[in-house]
């Protein structure tokens, strides 16, 4: 699997994004890449992809709206005053 494939996964597969940003090595292994054997050039390419993905996540976060307090139901099942978030677009 090439860094191009990883780029596609980062663009299209939120599950891969979540796993990659929390544990890059294990995510790559899960998708059939041995990070230990990657050429240096590809490692640099992956680092740049991580930064771009984090930037995309930050951009998406700006589209999220917040409703305080499980405003309707108050208690939820968590016995806490939860915050509800949703995409506003």
């Amino acid at each position, binding site marked *: 699997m090439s860094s191009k494939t990883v780029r596609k996964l980062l663009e299209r597969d*939120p*599950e891969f*994004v*979540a*796993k990659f*940003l*929390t*544990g890059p090595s294990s995510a790559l292994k899960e998708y059939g890449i041995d990070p230990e054997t990657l050429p240096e050039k590809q490692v640099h390419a992956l680092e740049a992809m991580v930064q771009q993905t*984090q930037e*995309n*996540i*930050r951009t*998406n*976060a700006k*589209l*999220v*709206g*917040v*409703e*305080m*307090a*499980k*405003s*309707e*139901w*108050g*208690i*939820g*099942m*968590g*016995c*806490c*005053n*939860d*915050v*509800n*978030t*949703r*995409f506003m*677009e």
Partner: protein
Amino acid sequence: MKTLAIYLTGACNLRCKHCSVGFDQYRPRQALSDDDIIRVLDRAREREVEFITFLGGEPFYSPHDLPRIFGHAEALGINVSVNTNLFFYERLEELFGYTSLQNVVVSVDGASAESHDAMRGKGSFERTVGNLRKLVKTRNALRPDITIDVTFALSDLNRRDNLKMFRLAEDIGIDCLNVNIVQPIGRAGKFRQRVMGDDAGYIEALVQIFIYFLASKPAFKLSVPIPPAVAAFINQKYAVPMEVFTNERMCGGTSVYTYVDLMGNLLPCPGLSYEEGRNSLMNRRQSRLSIVDHKISEIEESSLFQAFETARKTHSKNALFDPCNRCAFSDRCSPCTSAYYKTGADLEISLCKRVSNLVAESGEQFSVFKQTDLSESF
């Protein structure tokens, strides 16, 4: 006070490993009568409470005359939410004719039978999710005003389903996914090792939920109770923007909601009840706290409510509690107020404690908790 949560019954058909009121299920105590519940609804109307939430146990696994109760709520103009495992779909369907029914919260603790049933018992995934699909279909056809939430209690038994839950939620067509943090109380205390798991794995599963949400932009809402210390840690370690998920006012007791226990006591929150803390004082009706005998506004004047409200508002008890006593946010965070009134080693702000453990283990600098020797500042 927006919401009055009513513990309708301790009885339940399931024996979930993470249940905070699990011990009630073995020997269900006598619940309030239907007449008492009607009285509670009248009190709620008088206090201008907007919403009633029925909790259990399993509300549909009780002899209560629910059509009568929902009909009375409708007459009073009160909206009702009900939390359920959805085993008894036909009893819920009976309530579709009452406009008071406005929200159904269904417990789904995994995206597959393997993980869900590990927490809730064999065969429960098929029945609950089958009925949930039926519920969404019926709602869409007959009552589009009803919102349907799924509550997913994240534990070590189901954390590998954390992202699959999004796909299931999207596929079914729910309105909100509530991710709850499992607490080591009730049966979750008994099965502590199995449901709590290791701190690193648990926090990573949680972080993945936020990233997935931000990357996939689902059509439904996400609700997760995240205190500011946990949000700051996640932001610093994983570079996830956490502002939108952070909640400094975790505790909604007395302000957003109050709670009616099985004895008819009105309490600031469920955490003070017998069913959650096995506090023997609360296994009887307290004359000063009885909602059957007093108006809500009268009970709100009691010393219990006043002390709780002061603690919540002033953060005065945060200094007594680890890790709150070392937290950079202790002057503005209102975590679980009822925890301060409990005793025992298991009672803690579990998510903050997990993060505190990880910070201590990592040796890295995080501007979240002071170290106990104060050698590291934040």
